[in-house]
């Protein structure tokens, strides 16, 4: 039995690091929905662009890893800025199906654009030297990089909490999320705020993509492959709720990891079963209002 407990504990740690990529993706998705009211299907594409940008700066040009991440955040933030100002701004007030068509269109455009610029072949840059190696946990090697990812995810969660709860900017975001007209009436510049939030969310997605580059493949479609899980997370946690997205990411990441260990035959269904259960019992999500 002790052996089983050890297996589960190790699997929890592996699942935890997986959760963090999901969290970074889901955080931006839920933030944009919560504040802007747009369900952004193309959010996964921003994740992919973050990965490609980091790959280019770090793997191709050979810049420092941290600098590469920083530059890719700026690039994707810039793309987010263009997207918001030219396109998304026009769809805030219209029906959801139109939003889906526009955002879905961007998925196709970005996937093809990436193929034109970088080619269709999957690419993997080298792992930064200082992350090589592993820590011995329960007699098994646990990579330093996974430890780093777990802390990075928790750090972003704390940062988001601090920004939203403790800063003036965060208060304006929360105010306009709960009542757009009232916020506007007391002098908050809603269009600028929306642009900022969208750019910030794009950078979160890019960070998820960027942090994955040393261990994951960079290829067209990597964002779309994760966006489904990100949607499941936001549904479980409550659409538009950041705390929900964090808890949802933990649930989905760790349960997937357990499923692979314990029920390999039907592991793929598990998170959907959880989602269906949440929808039945609490349709607004665990932390939804």
């Amino acid at each position, binding site marked *: 039995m002790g052996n089983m407990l050890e297996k589960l504990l190790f699997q929890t740690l592996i699942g935890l690091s*997986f959760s963090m990529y999901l969290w970074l993706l889901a955080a931006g998705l839920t933030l944009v929905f919560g504040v802007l009211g747009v369900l952004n299907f193309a959010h996964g594409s921003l994740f992919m662009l973050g990965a490609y940008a980091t790959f280019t700066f770090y793997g191709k040009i050979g810049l420092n890893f941290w600098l590469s991440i920083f530059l890719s955040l700026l690039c994707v933030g810039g793309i987010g800025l263009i997207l918001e100002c030219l396109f998304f701004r026009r769809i805030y007030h219209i029906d959801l199906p139109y939003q889906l068509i526009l955002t879905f269109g961007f998925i196709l455009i970005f996937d093809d654009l990436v193929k034109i610029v970088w080619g269709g072949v999957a690419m993997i840059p080298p*792992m930064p030297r200082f992350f090589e190696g592993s820590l011995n946990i329960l007699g098994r090697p646990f990579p330093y990089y996974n430890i780093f990812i777990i802390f990075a995810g928790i750090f972003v969660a704390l940062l988001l909490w601090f920004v939203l709860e403790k800063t003036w900017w965060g208060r304006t975001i929360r105010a306009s999320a709960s009542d757009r007209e009232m916020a506007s009436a007391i002098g908050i510049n809603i269009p600028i705020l929306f642009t900022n939030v969208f750019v910030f969310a794009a950078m979160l997605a890019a960070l998820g993509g960027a942090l994955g580059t040393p261990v994951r*493949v960079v290829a*067209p479609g990597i964002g779309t492959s994760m966006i489904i899980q990100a949607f499941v997370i936001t549904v479980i946690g409550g659409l538009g709720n950041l705390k929900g997205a964090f808890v949802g990411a933990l649930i989905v990441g760790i349960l997937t990891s357990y499923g692979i*260990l314990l029920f390999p035959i039907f592991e793929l269904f598990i998170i959907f079963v959880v989602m269906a259960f949440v929808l039945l019992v609490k349709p607004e999500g665990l932390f939804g209002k």
Partner: protein
Amino acid sequence: MAKKITRRKFLRDTVIGGIVLGSGLGGYRITYGQTKKPAGPIKIGGQGAISGAHADYGWQMMAGATLAIEEINAKGGILKRKLELKFMDEELKPATAVKNARYLVTDWGADFLFGIDSSGSAMAVGPVLPELDRLCFFCHAATHRLTEELVAGKGIKQVFRMVAPVYQDALAAWVFKDSPEIKRWAGINCDYEYGYVAWNLFKENIKKFRPDVEFVAAAWAPFWTMDFSSHISAVMAEKPDAIFATPWAGEGVMLLRQALMLGVFEKIQAWWQCMGGSVDLLEGISREVAADKFKGKLWATARYIHNYPDTPENKAFVSAFRKRWGKFPNYSAEASYSTIYAIKAGAEKAKTLETSKVAEALEGMELKTPAGTRLIRKEDHQAIYTVPGGKVTHSPDYPIPVLGDLKIIPAKEYFRHPPFTPVAATK
């Protein structure tokens, strides 16, 4: 604004259409009616994945076929007719593949078809071939069902497979049967038919040689798995001696790199990466191989490797391919190259392009190809040739890793033979 069709425009279009159609049919008649007068080129229609993460496989097909066509055209073509190639993207989608096949034959006028990466696409294209009355030479799709069910079972004689099928993946059973220290096997496999069949074939075969082996764990990864660490850690929890893995292309690279991070190669004695001998995968792990991270424990095969066999045909092919494209040929390139030569041999033996006669001419034929002598088996139209398994090694003679320490087992031993018994295509 809807376009209005006037009577005049309708008449004009009908007349033009009639002329085009009529001349098309006329051309058709000349091709097949008068054999003495050399007609236009022989049209060869190919398709493969040329977009997406697996794009390199389709590109390799196009490159291999182009090279063969250039060589043959330089020497006068087939039956004194030049060859012409058109290559389309199958997108790994069965519906697209069928649409392409129909377009290539009925609109473009293809005399032969080849290519196809996905097994799903292959199983969809196979059944429409009798109606199109064209042969299709499959160059990558590996499902055993294509030849076992469609050809041997249903008698669809238009299907030929030039590439080694999923039997190749189970070669591990022969490579490791004499390693008594390897008893506990675990699998990390694709969560679709290819993964199920490869793993089941391997289990079935190694059990025959080694009743003492155990299969201690199996993890399943669907298409687009980015993070294999949960799969790796789940099977490593059972302390296996060796791992059998099917993820291919970029996914295979990622799986191996993540396994290195999790220290797998410190604990196991061998890792069999079925299609690890694929050029794109070897390229993806070349840094790690050069640094000996796998400690000589990584084994693989492929459906052809460029450093086997050591024959003049293979050397000539590899150097011509490298000269033409600046890359090493992968198995889909070799299979496509050999396909064009098979078409040449079949048409020249039959002295016609007629589908049924060329098919008959090819049955039981032995062809000298870069991958060695291919025997086209009569019962299932499967090309039989040997591809060794080997250890992934860094060699100073090559810019990317190669398979070394080759284990050569004759194809007759590890290929399945008719009459076929069903293989479980489930987890």
